[in-house]
């Protein structure tokens, strides 16, 4: 086994996938605005819009399968995410949370859809922008609801704590609310998509490379492809989960900003 690997290493070298594989050239023209991730974002907007417009246009009492699929997603976001987390004021946040969820889910799923096969969110700017919108929304909502002074006072000074302890924990509360929350929110999504795509690249490109080796390596390559396929299903799970977690956390942050007392 070891010598077989060695043999293949003597031939044309295997270039392991790296972060360079995520920097894609423009699809057409010479502009940075025509790269694959950006075109895929536009595609996702079109797909999500068309899907939900079509599934709700001919809404009937007895829903078609198509309508049922659209309504299930909507009901999931409205009931399980917005209503359960935010409480009685949930309805005005449903459009935002619904958009977040479907947008992220579609873009994540691009990672395993044949021919597209690139998760848009593995480019860190997209999660950054999404996290910035969440950041603006939950601080805005909190300040509108409680007034700027009261909102920040609630963040900084928790009731029922000895005064001396504020020196230790007030900076942490501020840092958590103002920096760590949006940062972890975006980096969690980015890192999951990035690592998942890299993992698939390793096994599928590795399998392809083994296929070009000597006969012993050819026999091993199906296992690499098999793991690649298993990991693709695993990725599907991760992609759904990450879209859910991002939306759940957005809802939790909004709920926290709305709550009168923490």
């Amino acid at each position, binding site marked *: 086994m070891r010598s077989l690997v060695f043999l293949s290493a003597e031939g044309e070298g295997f270039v392991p996938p790296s972060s360079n594989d995520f920097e894609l050239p423009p699809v057409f023209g010479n502009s940075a605005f025509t790269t694959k991730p950006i075109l895929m974002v536009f595609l996702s907007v079109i797909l999500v819009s068309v899907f939900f417009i079509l599934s709700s246009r001919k809404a009937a009492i007895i829903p078609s399968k198509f309508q049922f699929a659209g309504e299930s997603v909507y009901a999931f976001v409205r009931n399980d995410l917005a209503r*359960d*987390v935010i409480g009685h004021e949930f309805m005005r946040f449903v459009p935002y949370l619904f958009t977040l969820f479907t947008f992220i889910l579609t873009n994540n799923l691009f990672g395993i859809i044949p021919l597209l096969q690139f998760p848009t969110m593995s480019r860190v700017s997209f999660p950054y922008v999404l996290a910035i919108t969440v950041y603006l929304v939950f601080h805005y909502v909190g300040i509108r609801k409680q007034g700027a002074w009261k909102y920040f006072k609630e963040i900084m000074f*928790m009731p029922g*704590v000895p005064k001396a*302890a504020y020196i*230790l*924990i007030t*900076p*942490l*509360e501020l*840092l*958590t609310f103002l*920096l*760590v*929350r949006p940062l*972890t929110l975006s980096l969690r999504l980015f890192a999951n998509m990035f690592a998942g795509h890299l993992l698939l690249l390793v096994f599928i490109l590795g399998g392809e490379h083994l296929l070009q080796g000597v006969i012993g390596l050819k026999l091993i390559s199906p296992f690499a492809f098999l793991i690649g396929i298993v990991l693709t299903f695993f990725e599907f799970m991760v992609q759904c989960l990450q879209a859910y977690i991002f939306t*759940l*956390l957005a809802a*939790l942050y909004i*709920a*926290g900003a709305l709550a009168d007392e*923490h």
Partner: protein
Amino acid sequence: MATRDENAAWSIIGYLLSGLLFWGAVGWALDKWLGTSFLLLTGLIVGAASGIYLVWLRFGRE
């Protein structure tokens, strides 16, 4: 309440992280300023401790 537990699970990571980050950074800056080398470690320990204390304040006491 399920929401409260979910909230706790995700907030704890953030609080522990900011504890280390903030007081670690303070210790590091003091080290630079005073030319010492033990304050970074002190800061990290203080940060971890106050992060855990904050988690307990928020979610531990009922």
